[in-house]
Every structure is written in C-alpha cells, then in structure tokens.
C-alpha cells in the first residue's frame, strides 16, 4: 500500500537565523528512513506523467520504487543512465514546474518530493563509492566542448560514454560554469560539483581550463587544425545586462554575475584569507526577481548586511524565482519591495552609492510574456538608502564566439540560432545549446540541450 499522506515530507534544514550567517548548505536533505517514507507516496502510475516533465527524462517512478525497497545504489544507476549530474539537479531544478507539476499526487495534496529523493539518492551513492559507468571502447573520433557548465558537462558525459575522445575547454580557472561562479555554496556545495566533474574525468573526459575559445584558440582552429570532428558550444549567457539608468557605474553597483563570482568562485566570504574582496555595507538592494536575485540577496545577508531588499518591478506572483527560494529568502529576513522600479542610483562625493530613487508600479494589461505589464504610479517617487546595489535583471549570451566564428548565425539579441531538435547551428559540425541559445534559463534545460546535441553529434559522426 502506498503512503497516502497528502503532504511532502519536509527536508531537514538549518534554522533561518542560524543559516543567514553562514555559507553552509541550507537544506540537509533526507536520511534513509525519510527517503523510504517519502518514496512510498509514489503511486507508480502506468503513464508516468512525471517523466515527460523532465528535460532529461529521468525514469522517475522506477528510481523511486527502488528507493522504497531501500535499493539506493540501484536507484542511482537508473537516474544516472539519463542524467549526468544527479546531485546537482536534486538541488537546483525547478521541480515544481517540471516533474512534480505533473505528479498525480499533486492533484489532491502535494506531489511526491521527487527532487529531494533524487538528491538523497545521489548523495547516498556518492558517499557509498558509486563506480563510474564504463564508456564504450574508444571510436577514435574527437569532439570539443566549449564551456564546462551544465550543457557542456552533459554533452561531454554522453559522448564519452559512446566512446568519443572528449575535451572540454573552460575559460575560467575552475570547471563548472554557473554551478561554480553563479549558484552559492549554501544552495549547491562546490565540493559536490567537483565530485560530479571528477566522475566525468574518471571516465576519460579531458578538461582544459584557462582556454577562452575565440581568443586562445578559435572554433575554426579546433575543427581544422586540432582534429576535432565536431564542436558543441555551451558558453552560457555571460554578458550581464544593466538597466540603463543613471548611476550604474558608481562604486558599490555590481552586476549579479560580478557579485556572485566574487563570492562563489573567488571565495570573497573568506577575504582577506583569500585575496578577492567584495563590499556589501549595511544596506543592500538587489534589483530583479529571479533565482539569481534571490542568491545575491541571501549572499548579501550572509556577508553581514543589516537590511537587504529585493526590488522588483512586478508583483510576487510574477517573480520568475522558484517558490522555495523566495520562501527561504523571506525566512532569512530579506525584505521584498514588490512593484517597485529603480529610476536612478545616487552617489556620494567619492563616487560611491548612497541611495536609490524608485517609483512604485501597478499592474496593467498582460504583455508579450503573458505577465501583467507594470506601469508607473503617478507621484510615487521615493528613495531608499543603500550602500550596495546588485543588478540581477538577466544576461545576454557572450558575444566572443559569435564575433570570431564567421558564418555562425545568431539572433539580434545575440543567441546562437539552432535547430531545436538537434542543436545544429548554421555552421557544419558546430552544435550549440544552453543559455547561449535560449538566453538565461535553468540548469536542467541546459542539460537537456546538451543531451539533445550529444545524440545529434553521435548520429552525424557515426555516418562518417
């Protein structure tokens, strides 16, 4: 008999007023008994709606069934057969709009906690010495992967398993892309990312750090001189957007990318032991309503800011951030200023931020995104005293590869144009996927794109 409890079993968590002062992981996940208990809520539906909600088609009921039988290592093999980064996905996937949204148990009550179960299985298997999957024998063909974020790692893993010689080129000094520079330690421990990457290296994926494709070596050189038969571009959405309001170049104004990179990749929270500093001050405002904005706000709080504001021009319903992240942020004392839009950042005599002028908004008719368009409320101008402003309103694709690869077609806003079913670009043997194609999206969508491209690359190269 399945467990018919209507609610998900909550995961263990650090208390809000404790965790908002440290960078340790917020959620501590399930233990074995909790995982088995939650797994028994799965009805093992025949039509498996959850699987269709997963961009990499994890065989969800199958792995959950194995968890219920306490066969945790077997459950891991099921997940890993389609998902290269289970410990990552279990933590950062927006399950509520994917697998869990389709869960039949969600019709009456809460869906099965698929994400928490996936995380438990991955952590269990990694702690109990899961052996890497054995790749097929080498087929003598070389594939280059540009970028070691979720798209690149997934594509690399899939192709390596099929016997290709795979080399990932990473511009930064550490592989992982947004998993390392963007998502904070308290949501995704970096040791775990290192472990996931190490399992790929263990099966023979090569990673070259400090290689900026387009500068250190061009895409054409990879294909024509270095002997690669195909290239997958997963270079991410690495160009921060600003609002274009006065004062954005004042000291104390950061793009979310810079703020989070200083903290996550460069470990500014241990400055001066490590060498890269970050400034937070007493009052910090984060502009934007996505997961990145939540990450920046919660990081600012942990670095000692007394007041941290999320300033967002639409309402809470319209925020693109995951419900769980918003909930965690509120618990930690982040102040939400909804329907508020900055119009100017004001500086002091030294060129440092001192305040931000904002207007209040109200929601009008729906716009192209389907969300109600915010319009300015007359006479609502006011200022907030702040020492730090973090702009988290999104990123555009990095133009480096586009600018150095003749014949690679891109959208006006910079995204590489691909055939969605294959990831094929306008250039022969060049594939792309992830944020460099879609603009800033999620880890799992990037992984899905990496997977699609790996299959298409395999199809092309097996014909040769």
């Amino acid at each position, binding site marked *: 008999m399945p467990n018919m409890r209507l609610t998900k079993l909550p995961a263990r968590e650090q208390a809000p007023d404790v965790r908002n002062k440290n960078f340790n992981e917020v959620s501590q996940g399930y233990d074995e008994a909790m995982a088995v208990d939650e797994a028994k809520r799965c009805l093992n539906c025949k039509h498996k709606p959850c699987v269709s909600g997963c961009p990499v088609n994890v065989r969800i009921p199958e792995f959950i069934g194995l968890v219920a039988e306490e066969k945790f290592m077997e459950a891991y093999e099921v997940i890993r057969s389609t998902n290269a980064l289970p410990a990552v996905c279990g933590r950062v996937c927006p399950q509520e709009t994917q697998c869990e949204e389709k869960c039949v148990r969600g019709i009456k009550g809460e869906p099965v906690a698929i994400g928490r179960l996936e995380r438990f299985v991955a952590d269990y298997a990694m702690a109990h010495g899961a052996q890497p999957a054995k790749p097929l024998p080498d087929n003598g063909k070389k594939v280059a992967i540009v970028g070691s974020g979720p798209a690149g790692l997934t594509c690399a893993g899939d192709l390596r398993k099929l016997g290709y010689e795979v080399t990932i080129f990473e511009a930064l000094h550490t592989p992982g892309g947004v998993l390392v520079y963007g998502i904070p330690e308290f949501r995704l421990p970096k040791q775990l990312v290192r472990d996931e990457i190490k399992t790929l290296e263990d099966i023979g994926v090569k990673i070259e750090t400090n290689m*900026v494709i387009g*500068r*250190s*070596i061009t895409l054409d050189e990879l294909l024509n001189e270095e002997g690669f038969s195909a290239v997958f571009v997963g270079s991410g959405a690495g160009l921060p957007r600003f609002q274009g309001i006065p004062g954005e170049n004042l000291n104390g104004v950061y793009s979310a990318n810079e703020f989070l990179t200083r903290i996550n990749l460069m470990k500014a929270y241990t400055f001066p032991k*490590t060498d890269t500093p970050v400034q937070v001050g007493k009052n910090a405002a984060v502009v934007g309503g996505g997961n990145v904005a939540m990450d920046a706000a919660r990081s600012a709080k942990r670095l000692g800011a007394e007041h941290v504001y999320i300033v967002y021009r639409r309402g809470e319903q319209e925020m693109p951030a995951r419900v769980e992240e918003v909930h965690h942020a509120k618990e930690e004392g982040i102040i939400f200023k909804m329907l508020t839009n900055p119009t100017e950042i004001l500086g002091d005599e030294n060129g440092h931020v001192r305040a931000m002028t904002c207007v209040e908004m109200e929601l009008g008719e729906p716009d192209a995104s389907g969300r109600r368009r915010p319009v300015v409320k007359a006479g609502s101008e006011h200022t907030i005293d702040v020492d730090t402003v973090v702009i988290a309103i999104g990123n555009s694709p990095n133009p*480096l590869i586009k600018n150095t690869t003749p014949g690679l077609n891109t959208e006006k806003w910079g995204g590489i144009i691909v055939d969605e079913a294959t990831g094929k670009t306008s250039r022969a043997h060049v594939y792309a996927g992830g944020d460099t194609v879609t603009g800033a999206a999620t880890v799992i969508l990037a992984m899905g794109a990496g997977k699609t491209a790996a299959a298409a690359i395999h199809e092309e190269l097996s014909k040769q």
Partner: protein
Amino acid sequence: MYRIVTKRALHETVTLMEIEAPYIAKKAKPGQFIILRVDDSGERVPLTVAGTDPARGTVTIIFQKVGYTTKRLDCLNEGDSLQDFVGPLGVASHLAGMKKVAVIGGGLGVAIAYPQAKALHDMGAEVDVIVGFRNTELMILMDELKAASTNLYVMTDDGSNGHKGFVTSALEEQLKAGKQYDHVIAIGPLVMMRAVVNITKQYDIPTVISMNPIMIDGTGMCGCCRVTVGGEMKFACVDGPDFDGFAVDWDEAIARGRMYRKEEAESLECKACNLKNVELQAKRGGN
C-alpha cells in the same frame, strides 16, 4: 601550470617575467592582456602582454610590486609555476594605417607602450616615443625603446636625467615646434592619459588610450571593468582595452579604480607576515 622561464628585476620595484604559455605566445598581439593567478586562493589579476616569443612559447609580463598579489608573484623564482595564466584577452590595438605616431608611456605603462612602439616601428611608421619616470633609477627598457623609435624623449619628475618634467611637457614641446602626428597612443596612469588627451584635443590628434581597470573573469561575464565611453557603457575586457581617449569619462574611471583601496591595504596588512615567510623561502630557494 605555467612555468616561469625567466625572471629579471628591472629595478627595485619592477620585475620582468617570461612565462611558458605556448597558445598565448602564438596568438597575442600588442594591446592584448592576460589574467593570472599566483596560487589557489589568489585573485585574478590582468596584466598587459609586454612581449611574446612564439618560438620558445613564452609570454613576457612586467609588473610593479604594489599590492599583495604582485608582491606574492615576485616571491616566485625561475622554474616555479603560476597556478593560472589565461589569454590573450581583449581586442588587439588597431595600428594599421598609422604613419606618424607619438607613443607615450608613463611609469609601468612604458612596458605596455613598448610593444606598440615596436610594432609600429616594424611596420615602417615614424615613431616618436615619449616616456616619463619619477627618476633615473626607475627607468626601464631604455635600449629596447631606442631601437623601436625614430626619436626617444625621456622625462623625469625630478630632472635627474637632465630632462625635468612630465611626458605632457615633452609632447607639448614637440607639437609647439610644429611636429605633426596622425595618431597619439598614451599608456600609463589614468591621470597621465587624461593630461595627454587634454593636449591632443587642442591639436585635434586622434588619441588612443589603454584602460587597465579592475577585472575578474576578463571575458565579458562580470562587467566589473565597465567604463563610460562617449556616453555608452563599455566593458574594457571585451570592447577594449583600447578606447578613444577623447570619449572616456575620466572622473568615473579614476573613482572606479579606487573602489578597493581599503581592502587592498587590509589584504596586504593581514598577510604581511605570510608574505615575509614566502619571501624568505624564495630567497633561500633561489640561491
């Protein structure tokens, strides 16, 4: 890892190193830069490429020991390796078509001005090199500059070489005497570049300057190096580091360069003791 092939003190506070980095050596052009990290807890520091030797696969950097990282870097010896060394970054200088050029360098900027002067000289352009130092002791690359210039003018703040004054006074003297330049290239401290631009504006000579702002990734990802040029936001790492000197917002650039003064001092102070130990070890290891 990136091995230090040569290390040479140019004077008490400035050091030259040749680093083994074959990809970069093959690609780097004048005006481009690299980013390095000394060790695993190190910050990412951008340095302009001061020269390359593609045959040996080495890249030359010249740095001044001012902050923690550069002092830490100077503790390394030949045969040691840097943790990270990435490049070439930024857009190469557009030198094609320049015929009569004044290349101006101040202090450490001279190290960066040199490859530009050399490239122009090799192209057959007429190159006047004007460089300035605080005093004779701090002069660097004199033989190299002489070989890469039509005329070389060397100024010192204290007049210890017999030519007292700033690079701007030498430039103004040439212009007043009727010297014609089709371009001026100025590389050095922000205040020096601004002073040069203030003169060349009067003579309407297109002036290229090279920005060296605080950076992290150097690939356009963080936006830390943004600078206002002609009212538009530019990133020095991907749009520069060369910009039209007439269009740069100098006050903003100067303020941004000062953002981490306090933290820079704190970093140095906190690790002073550690640095001493490393220095001692380096000396013992070195000889």
